[in-house]
């Protein structure tokens, strides 16, 4: 198929950037979206044009590196699909595709479609862990955990930290990302000791990173490639309320 791409090009964080149009004349339906961009880049290199920079790594939908807004949707039109797992059979001959980076104050653009998501790391560093040193852990079966709790923890822990939730949100809120970690650990007995401090510290850091507020639009859930439920946000709000009483 023959496609027309409008790609956001931005030399670096200081550049204002803009869309540049490229022709993709020979796209196979079996290509992934990133493979399509690889082919476009090969042609650009041949033509002496700087290839389009985009983040990617595992290309199997789990590392959370790939990040682009395709026709207005983070990771493109397919539900529960990362860009690297999006295949061109979901597009048709003659389509025009608009490709942009995640847009959020907390995710500054590095180049083209590549953004800096270190704000997510700092939120986790603030409290997204169980403070246990290596060694001396009790036997793994010493503490039975109800299957339902383990499953709920796993549902939340499946978050790949890609940032699509932030990119989808009109407020650029990171609530779904932060809630996924808070909920994961709050569901487990191992997470109880630091339960109040954890949510408190993570939320404070989230605000410091200039993520926006949550206004319950649920765009985040719709965009999440791992279908993390907004119910975790409700849970985090309860956890936060609890911590305000005890920590705040």
């Amino acid at each position, binding site marked *: 198929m023959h496609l027309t791409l409008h790609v956001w090009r931005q030399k670096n964080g200081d550049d204002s950037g803009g869309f540049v149009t490229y022709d993709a004349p020979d796209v196979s339906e079996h290509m992934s979206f990133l493979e399509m961009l690889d082919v476009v880049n090969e042609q650009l*290199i041949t033509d002496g044009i*700087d290839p389009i920079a985009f983040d990617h790594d595992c*290309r199997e939908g789990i590392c959370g590196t790939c990040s682009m807004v395709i026709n207005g949707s983070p990771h493109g039109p397919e539900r529960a699909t990362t860009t690297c797992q999006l295949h061109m*059979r979901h597009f048709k001959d003659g389509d025009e595709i608009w490709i942009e980076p995640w847009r959020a104050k907390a995710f500054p653009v590095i180049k083209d479609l590549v953004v*800096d*998501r270190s704000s997510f*790391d700092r939120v986790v*560093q603030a409290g997204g862990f169980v403070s246990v040193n290596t060694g001396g*852990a009790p036997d793994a079966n010493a503490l039975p955990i109800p299957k339902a709790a383990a499953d709920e923890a796993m549902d939340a822990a499946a978050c790949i*930290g890609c940032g699509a939730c932030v990119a989808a949100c009109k407020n650029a809120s990171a609530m779904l990302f932060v809630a996924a970690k808070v909920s994961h650990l709050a569901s487990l007995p191992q997470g109880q000791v630091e339960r109040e401090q954890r949510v408190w510290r993570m939320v404070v850091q989230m605000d410091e990173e200039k993520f926006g507020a949550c206004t319950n639009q649920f765009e985040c859930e719709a965009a999440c490639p791992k279908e993390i439920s907004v119910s975790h946000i409700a849970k985090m709000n309860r956890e936060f309320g609890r911590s305000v009483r005890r920590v705040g």
Partner: protein
Amino acid sequence: MSITVEPRTAPRSTPGTGVPDDKIPSGPLEQRWEKHKGQMKLVAPANRRRYSLIVVGSGLAGASAAASLAEMGYGVRCFCYQDSARRAHSIAAQGGINAAKNYQNDGDSVYRLFYDTIKGGDFRSREANVYRLAEVSTAIIDQCVAQGVPFAREYGGHLSNRSFGGAQVSRTFYARGQTGQQLLLGAYSALARQIGLGNVDMHPRTEMLDLVVVDGHAKGIITRDLVTGKVERWAGDAVILATGGYGNTFYLSTNAKGCNVTAAYRAYKRGALFANPCFTQIHPTCIPVSGDYQSKLTLMSESLRNDGRIWVPKKHGDTRPAHQIPEDERDYYLERKYPSFGNLAPRDIASRSAKEVCDEGRGVGPGGLGVYLDFADSINRLGEKTIADRYGNLFQMYERITGEDPYRQPMRIFPAVHYTMGGLWVDYNLMSNIPGLHVLGEANFSDHGANRLGASALMQGLADGYFVIPYTIGDYLAREGKSEVTTDHDAFREVESQTTERVDKLLSVNGRRSVDDFHRELGKVMWDYCGMGRTREGLTKALERIPELRDDFWNDVRVLGANEEYNTSLEKAGRVADFLEFGELMCRDALEREESCGGHFREEYQTEEGEAMRNDKDFTHVAAWRFQGDGIIPTREVEQLHFEFVELATRSYK
């Protein structure tokens, strides 16, 4: 920098000065690690902060090591090329992690896990290392649970296990199909905590480009900031490489796109021995290649073989769709050849058998490079719902990539490069022959021999990082004392200027072909001649072709842009330049190992039935290669493997 052309034929290597002491303790196998721990020197808690350690890589091995060492009080700097430590490729492991917990009361034990691993590795690994791995496996599970890793559980609240990759006990712990992700996020959270506490200085989007050796000891590294291009020097009391495997030498593999051999290969060029580079694992259940644009291969968890039956048509060139091929015209070749293990035959055997039937012209799908993995019988027996519960996410992934529905028609699968058992040579302390340079996880060679068992990579990465290096590094530091070397030392200046020169050279070639174009061509040479079946003739051809390709690369590669910017072509160019040298080392190692063992199958050495024929008399050893200079054949050092506790047996899965 001088690029020398190597001779066009492949003369034999000469033996060198041998490998250093492997430091393996003596005594009964089950007491060795305990005894060794008791004898190693310690660094007192108050003194640890004086030492600064460099950890390269933030996967299971790197993150667990960096976190554990920082918890102990060492100053740690950690580097990764990804934008966050959480994205290292360990995250993609699906199936699970082995541990000798024997929670299922089905006869498992440390000894049995040890024996299975030694046997699975085709008797090409060290008894003592493997025993230690099995021994510490149980503590890994405890540690991960304490961190909040949400392993699968039974209704009673206890941990669930499954049998994996043909193991005859259920010792594999898992978190849905995302075990690697959950274990990595556990290690990442421990690392994040130490970063937040100021005990680890983390450098994402930073790539190690060289190792700095001063007076024979590893004293630091040179890195390039992938965003700004800044080349920097870092000094430390020890360097720990946890930089993963080199599967991307083949271009197409299940590795992440960024996985590379550069850190390990640069260490090799600075004198570290590279052990068994030809031992690569080809995983049997991957989605076949669909076109020239293919950028990577996707693995489908091996657990699928628990309920899927593998077959091809009996007739050559049979192009009928699967459902039109009657039962008696199908060849369930694994069940036929290996009645006791059947579809669960180990990875190397399953992969090779798939290649055989495709070579015979009985492969299915485009190009005849695929075999069926059929769930029809299981769906009839257990119902679609049960199969969906077990494999729903994998079926979905398959459909997403191929556009075919595996509930209605069999999956098509084909082997793909997945893991590399070879790596930098290390002693029992996980230290290379360069004192101070330690190597963990897939980047070292020590535990999997010639073939790795399923669910053992995660185990080894975490064993090395959580439970081995925290003990052994103290022994080195205590003996060596605090390093006086700073980044002002001449050695740093020299290595940095070599790094910068190399970057400049890559940018100045300004030829016609893209980096990927060269990488693809190298990959094809490697796959054709150093893949599932290797021959003297093919390897000799590869040893002629790779140096030619390398010359072409340095004369005709096109890398646009500058160093001082985010430049993905430049990143890739440096990595591919190293693959172009390293591929040759793999072929050389494959050529000189004149036997078939594990993932290394030399077609000249097989039984009449086509099974691998090991040569224990001449090759019960580790081949460790020592760099001698560009354009000079490296020397092949030999570490004899001693089997004191197990008897060398022919692996039989019939």
